[in-house]
């Protein structure tokens, strides 16, 4: 039976893992993610969840254990943040290269130095070339839903890629809001047990994984690329199925358009800031201004066709980046420009959790139409 409770983004991530009946959770604590694995450890200790909790000595080992545990055919989960995700980098490529459907939550937090505990997307975007699917969540409900849906997408035989699910540190991770928790029966019908055929370590049927190759290497990368392309249809189909069951489809799975029909000015954004931007759009629309928003829900696969479809008729486009690639610019703005084949106004804002707020979004809407990079302090 469904229940509606006040839970944090971290709590929602833990609930997603519990409902998906994950079996092994290698973990290492880091703020602001720690509450996710704390909650899971309490559930395991009290018998509410049947899983193995593996405290590791570093995040590098966590990622190694995720890959190893997934290789023997178990459903695995973990969570990390910021520097922890950086320490996993080497093994992130191994997990995706071995085509293991690992689901991991990243609670985004700005990278050191200097130290910040607040949200910033540079940590997760550093991993954009690692062959993992990437989903950015806008609220706590979407976190729970995305973790459960994540397994169904990642384990699909046309995908078989790991997935990073991003939720914004503090803004979602420590904020409680009402979340519908689906019943276990409902989820069991939606998400069958993981039954891998492609790669499984079994002493009775020995298999070599990730061995040395030479000329073949490029075929493996080509297959990863194809899997990424395939994932778009699977994400859309799984979101449609989820919507039928729960009433929540999260846009078309790839992008969430908001008030785009007659928009003359549109801001492209991702993550939890999109809620404040919706508030601003509502406010400006009430004054008769034709403004809208396009939220990117998947960063990998990058929803290029969907962006072109949504924005080709829009005159003035801006992109909000809570990240910066020094020497290049906003990472998302660069990719949006490449899709559209024309300039956009690139706004760098909210780095290290710096407050943007509805009043600044109103001003930003007034500054579109120039192909420049502008920092919003």
């Amino acid at each position, binding site marked *: 039976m469904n229940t*509606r*409770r*006040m839970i944090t983004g971290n709590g929602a991530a833990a609930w997603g893992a519990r409902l998906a009946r994950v079996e092994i959770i290698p973990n290492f604590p880091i703020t602001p993610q720690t509450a996710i694995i704390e909650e899971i450890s309490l559930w395991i200790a009290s018998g509410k969840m049947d899983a193995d909790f593996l405290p590791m000595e570093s995040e590098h080992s966590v990622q190694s254990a995720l890959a190893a545990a997934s290789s023997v055919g178990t459903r695995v989960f973990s969570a990390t943040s910021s520097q922890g995700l950086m320490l996993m980098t080497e093994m992130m490529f191994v997990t995706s290269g071995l085509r293991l459907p690992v689901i991991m939550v990243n609670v985004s937090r700005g990278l050191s130095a200097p130290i910040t505990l607040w949200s910033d997307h540079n940590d997760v975007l550093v991993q954009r070339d690692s062959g993992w699917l990437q989903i950015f969540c806008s609220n706590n409900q979407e976190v729970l839903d995305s973790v459960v849906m994540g397994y169904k997408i990642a384990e699909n035989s046309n995908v078989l890629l790991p997935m990073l699910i991003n939720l914004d540190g*503090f*803004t979602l991770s*420590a*904020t*409680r*809001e*009402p979340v519908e928790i689906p019943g276990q029966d409902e989820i069991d019908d939606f998400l069958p047990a993981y039954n891998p055929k492609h790669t499984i370590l079994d002493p009775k049927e020995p298999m070599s994984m990730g061995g040395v190759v030479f000329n073949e290497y490029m075929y493996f990368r080509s297959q990863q690329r194809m899997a990424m392309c395939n994932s778009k249809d699977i994400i859309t189909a799984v979101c449609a199925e989820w919507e039928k069951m729960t009433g929540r489809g999260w846009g078309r799975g790839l992008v969430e358009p908001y008030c785009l029909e007659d928009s003359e000015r549109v801001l492209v954004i991702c993550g*939890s*800031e999109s*809620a*404040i931007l*919706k*508030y601003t759009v*509502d406010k400006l629309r009430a004054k008769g201004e034709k403004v809208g928003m396009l939220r990117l829900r998947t960063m990998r696969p990058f929803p290029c066709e969907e962006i072109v479809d949504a924005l080709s008729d829009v005159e003035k486009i801006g992109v909000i980046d809570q990240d910066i690639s020094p020497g290049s610019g906003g990472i998302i703005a660069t990719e949006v420009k490449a899709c559209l084949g024309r300039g956009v106004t690139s706004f760098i804002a909210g780095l290290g959790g710096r*407050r943007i*707020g*509805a009043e600044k979004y109103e001003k930003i809407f007034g500054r579109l139409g120039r192909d420049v990079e502008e920092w919003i302090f």
Partner: protein
Amino acid sequence: MLEITIHGRGGQGVVVTSRILGTATLYDGLYAQDFPLYGAARRGAPVMAFVRIDNKPILLRGYIAKPNVLMLLDESIIEVKDVFSDLPADCTIIINTTRNTRDFKAAHPEIKDLRVFCVDGTGIALEYLKKPIPNVVIIGFLIGITHLITVDAFKTAVRDELKKYPPDLIDKNIAGALKACELVTGAGAGVTAR
């Protein structure tokens, strides 16, 4: 939408206060958002928590700068933080202090035109719990003054949020809060949503 900012010190139950309000709001059939703001969390350090309440899903996020209700669980916060500047004209302030409102306003002229309620939450907490932890009692004052949440939803929410504590401590907290509510009922005329 109604926005509440709560100040206090680590150990006084600032975060639990916000959680009780959020959970009670959900039981009342409305939408809520509650969240804390702290640096390195430790007993005695200044802590803030926030609550948003609305009859539709809440889109705004982050720090509340212009609260409808400001609650101070510890008046000594005033000495380390400027909590009274830039408050909106319709802000209701509830302060846990043994001073009376007239003396308090005389000492803090910046809030002389706002609706200020000086309440002795710690006194009631000492009487009912034998402990100087005033947070649940202060919510009783808040209910009496503003009627933001119903008493039934409040009681259920306290039982939810304090479930790791002994049942008799929970009962004493609720009894203290109901006493506080009774003391101030009729003192205010609710608060207005913006």
